[in-house]
């Protein structure tokens, strides 16, 4: 729809008013994208790590290069591409499971020392992860580090309100 109207604009088929409306809407899209980028920039700097894979920019550039070359007025459209790609990447990052890190202790230093942690022995196995999450869910009823409940299996009997289960 938008594409065909931009095409019409490129072909000079639109009157002044219609052309203005299209340009205005394209500018709003760009503003939206800038806001989006800013929002991610804030998140990234807080996190101090890149949520995207190192070659993300290269891949994105490659993707964009594959896009068909368009007439001048259509160059508004490619700006919309990164928006979609970023959005997908952001949601994937958010659902990925958070691993627990196992710490090895230096037995010589014993418990008396404050810094007994000497090495990270890698991520915990999947089975202990599941175990830990159940304890974490119970603990979070009282702790401040509350996350919104995820996929913890709650030991609750579920009743059907409308009796259609």
């Amino acid at each position, binding site marked *: 729809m938008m594409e065909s109207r931009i095409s019409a604009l490129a072909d000079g088929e639109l009157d002044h008013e219609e052309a203005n409306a299209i340009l205005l809407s394209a500018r709003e899209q760009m503003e939206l994208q800038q806001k989006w980028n800013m*929002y991610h920039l804030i998140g990234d700097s*807080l996190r101090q790590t890149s949520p995207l894979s190192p070659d993300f920019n290269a891949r994105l550039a490659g993707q964009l290069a594959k896009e068909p070359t368009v007439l001048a007025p259509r160059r508004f459209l490619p700006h919309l591409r990164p928006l979609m790609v970023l959005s997908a990447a952001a*949601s994937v990052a958010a659902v990925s499971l958070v691993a627990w890190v196992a710490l090895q202790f230096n037995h010589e230093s014993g418990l008396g020392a404050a810094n007994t942690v000497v090495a990270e022995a890698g991520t915990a196995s999947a089975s202990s992860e599941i175990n830990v999450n159940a304890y974490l869910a119970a603990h979070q009823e009282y702790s401040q580090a*509350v996350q919104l409940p995820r996929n913890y299996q709650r030991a609750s009997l579920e009743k059907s309100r409308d009796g259609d289960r």
Partner: protein
Amino acid sequence: MRALLLVLVAALMGLQGVSQAAEVAQQTDALNWLKKVAAAAHQLNYSGIYIYQYGDHIETSKITHIKDESGEHEKLEALDGSPREVIRNNAEVLCFKPDNSTSVVVEKIKVEKSFPALLPEQFDGIAENYRARFAEPDRTAGHACKVIVLGPRDQYRYQHKLWIDQATGLLLKAGMLNERNEVIGQFAFTQVEIGGQIDRASFKPKIAGKKVRVSSEPATATELRQSDLSWAVKRLPPGFVQVTVMRRIMPGKGVPVKHLVFSDGLATVSVFIEPVATVTKPMQSVLRQGATHVYTRTVADHQITVLGEVPAITVMQIANSVSKN
């Protein structure tokens, strides 16, 4: 010469006294601010977006909070991952989750503290276990902030840093820092509107489905009398006091688990005790996720699991000192 020395020593001692007095005054002033912060999160109307970050993990939530003649109402919406909404009406907290494409599950959940209402009403523990001081004023989410640092008085807890809206006292950012001054977990508003009217319609759940399954929580946890506990933590790190003890039904476990909760005013530690037969795989090491440490050991045919937003040494000392009466 000797007299001069004496005068010098006296002057130095005087200076030290002055600086100590200044420290005490600052601590009192900071604690008064914290009381304001604790109340503001419950009394004010606000809406905004905040992030919760620990390690390389980040999640974003949208919060809307009002206080009116009918009490406190709050809606918390997860902006990433699967859609989840938590709606609080005073003490009642409901969680809405899509079950499949056409139905939604409503669960009654329990959440004692959540951002920005992180601070307790009781401050005795905080003053005893943390040194409160003001840091350089800062700006966060577009608001001028007072910054209060709560430094731990010993190695058993982390440092907390709080960014407080200068105008209203609302907590806008809260970070937990380890002994190397590294941020290990933080909440932060990226955008927030404070005050003003908020439409009650915005408290309706967005997640909707044809079929609504209501999961009524049939007492997964029941309070336990101390005399029925038969277990004790012999070497509890200083400053921690027992908040509650309960018997809890947990997923995948046939036997109820005993759950003890300890707090120093800011940090919370949970101790879980269960017969070892129900344990699928005991852990051999301390596990860490952001600021949270977990440690497990076996005592008298029971598995002891200790978990909290405290340094590894705290969970280890607690676990190692649990014994049967």
